[in-house]
């Protein structure tokens, strides 16, 4: 049985059991490897994507339960056309190993959509679930503030 799924605006028919987590549908079936596997138990945030604009851990959403359109890091922007948020990430040279950054950016994008001018406390609350073993947090914080300022100018 195939299951219908819309990812980054594209419809897909996926032939997988309905309990396969969205993360593994994206990575292993649809080839969208920008979304990362870190823990499998919603403890690190590396797999964060949006469903109807809401940030979710894709390792915890079963394929059969996906309730809306899925957006991944691949639709945030591209190397030739960075989103404002991605540009801020590059300007602040945020990434070190970079493995967690797709999830960080997707989480930050959801934060900014809801709270266009977040305080440090807002950032703490929204980003607490996203682990970075390289310790890039101070630059992530700076990039979020910078992106918020740039978005308000648009």
């Amino acid at each position, binding site marked *: 049985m195939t299951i219908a799924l819309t990812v980054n605006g594209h419809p897909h028919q996926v032939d997988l059991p309905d309990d396969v987590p969205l993360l*593994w549908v994206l990575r292993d079936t649809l080839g969208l490897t920008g979304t*990362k596997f*870190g823990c499998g138990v919603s403890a690190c945030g590396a797999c964060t994507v949006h469903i109807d604009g809401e940030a979710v851990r894709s390792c915890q959403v079963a394929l059969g339960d996906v309730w809306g359109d899925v957006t991944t890091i691949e639709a945030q922007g591209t190397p030739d056309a960075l989103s404002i948020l991605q540009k801020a*990430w590059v300007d602040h040279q*945020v*990434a070190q190993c970079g493995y967690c950054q797709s999830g960080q950016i997707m989480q930050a994008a959801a934060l900014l959509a809801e709270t266009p001018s977040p305080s440090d406390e807002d950032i703490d609350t929204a980003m607490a679930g996203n682990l970075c*073993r390289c310790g890039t947090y101070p630059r992530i914080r700076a990039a979020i503030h910078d992106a918020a300022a740039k978005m308000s100018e648009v």
Partner: protein
Amino acid sequence: MSRIGTIARRTFLIGSAAIAGGVAFGIYKLNETPENPLTPGTGEAALNPFIFLDQTGVTIITPRAEMGQGVHTTLAALAAEELDLDWQDVRVLHGPPAAAYYNNAMVGGLLPFKEYQMTGWQHMMAGQLDKAGKFLSLQVTGGSTSMRDGFDRLREAGASARETLKLAASDRLGVAAASLRTESGRVIAPDGTSIAYGELAEAAAQIVPPTVTLRDPSQWRYLGQSMPRLDQVAKATGTAQFGIDTRMEGMKFATIRQNPQRAAMSSFDASAAETMPGVEKIIALETGVAVVASNTWLAFQAADAIDITWAPAPYPTDQDAIWAAIEDSFDTEPNSTLRHDGNLVDLPEEATLVEAEYRMPFLAHATMEPMNATALFTGDALQVTCGNQSPVMVRDKCAEATGLTPDQVTVQTTIMGGGFGRRGDVDYAVLAAQVAQQMPGTPIQLTWTREEDMTQDFYRPAAIGRFRGAVQDGKVLALDGKIAGPSVNASAMPRWTGMEASGPDKIHVEGAYDQPYAIPNYRIAGHLTDLGIPLGYWRSVGASVTAFLHETFIDELALAAGRDPLDLRLELMRDEHPPSAACLEKVAEMSGWTGQTPDGIGRGVAFSFSFGTPVAQVVEVAQTDAGIRINKVWVACDVGLALDPSIVRAQMMSGVIFGLSAAAMGEITFADGAVEQQNFYDYDALRMHTAPAVEVAILENKTHLSGAGEPGTPPSMPALGNALFDLTGTRARSLPLMHSFDLLM
């Protein structure tokens, strides 16, 4: 795959075949240059092992691997500086496994000198010993050595390529090479005629590279500047390709369950797993069982459904027994006494004696990207793609495990989602190769679950430190430290080099015996515990253990002596090693250190000299309603020469947060022979709401360039403990600190 990726794949395939022709372990004489492993095609040139040239321009091949520390960028800057490339044209790739990429700055570090005291001849001797890295095929990224290793080599590679290109242009244009100059990837003649490097590739490939002199630092455009990192756009867009992102036609997804007691797999029943969705094959291995499926998660599910019987652990099976074994080793002869100054026996009766015992737990690396590798076995060849810190080891161990010769194995090294020393071991690549061997012709990606990653690590060793000392009239008279625990070298050396560790174990006591304190009666002894728990190199290695012992004890001595802990350190260090003292003075200035803190605020200082780099830190903690928060860290370090200040700062910041994470909450414990911690919920690290702001100052008073990746980690742990003592009056002598304090989580 990008055009460059295609070139690299072809080149590296050919390159590895070329290696079979004559380059093998140990055939080099010490001062001979290893063969260039790059074999260019028509219209291309490999001007040396580091500079590849084709019609589209230059690609810089790096001998060290990118795991987040920024080496791609700075190694490329070293070559681009001399080669006159515009920064936006700089492209970079990892080198294939080859002797040419041996680490030229690693082996000398094993000499039991105190680096801060090293004289010219000792540096020279270490430099000669470094060449032994060639014999050992040490293509290793680690030990904070990449800049020391690459500083001359990559600049020479760039300069040599530049002069070769000028000779090629001279031939074509019929003008003297000396009249030519280079700019923006082109050779330019006096009349303004210019030729792109790529157009000269074929001709340049025929020219023997001339001897070159390197440019004076006053001419540098890139070095010493903060360059835009080459990996930022890819990492901000999800397009960066980690090992786990490898995708090949027809690839299957696999996982593995290995013996949590780190011994053999005895037997298993996979009857339930065999019929589960997506399962293609179940494969028995020596230490576990692998499942190959159509999807990684389906493989995870099936692996969980296999009933496996394991052989018992070859080490004490619970934490109490492990601690007891470590305690017992204090009764054995010390393996080393690398510092023994003065007289530790006849101390004045009027002196105040201080004694303390400290405990350090085992730690996991816990890289964000779990262990994984992708392998394709085709009978007489094996292709392995993975992030790794040692490509030659990947090649040789995968060859050995599959019955191939090294020349039948190709290795593609991807960027890594964290290394921290874990990916210097290559067990995960070997397992992928063994699984692939059971399915010839099918590419296999073997991905570990986080639980597998956590419980099958090579751990940072646990240790106990017993320190005693004496103070009198505000002075430190004596410091006598004994450090007991299992040795990382004894565990890892046989895996890495096939040789047993022998002699005084420097790594076991580094960070304690080699600190620049002028204490008249000063002894550091190492006692080794033979445990059998698999251990590995963990960011900052020995100093990750010893700095907490040594620097907490210095604070205890200061308290007993009635001295300010920063002033006391400064007094002991000022004449012993002025650049170290300058770091302390700088961090005092940055933090506005007064020795006094208001209620609700605590501050602690610590210092560590590791990997050639002195680092002083002040940590500030604050009592909040939700628990104690780490507010801020000030860091002053001296790397001799900061080739890229922004990257050095980022590495210091990263090292601090890595160290504070371990100090606050890092702990691996054993029960029933297995590691108890499973995932980030029980092996966590600092996060956005618990990470401090970090301010870094870089000094350049030292004469030798030194590392940045690890030295930030050691002092962060004791600085935090000392700050918590200042806040609460409670001295915690064991890590993690979450067991002793109400830390904000």
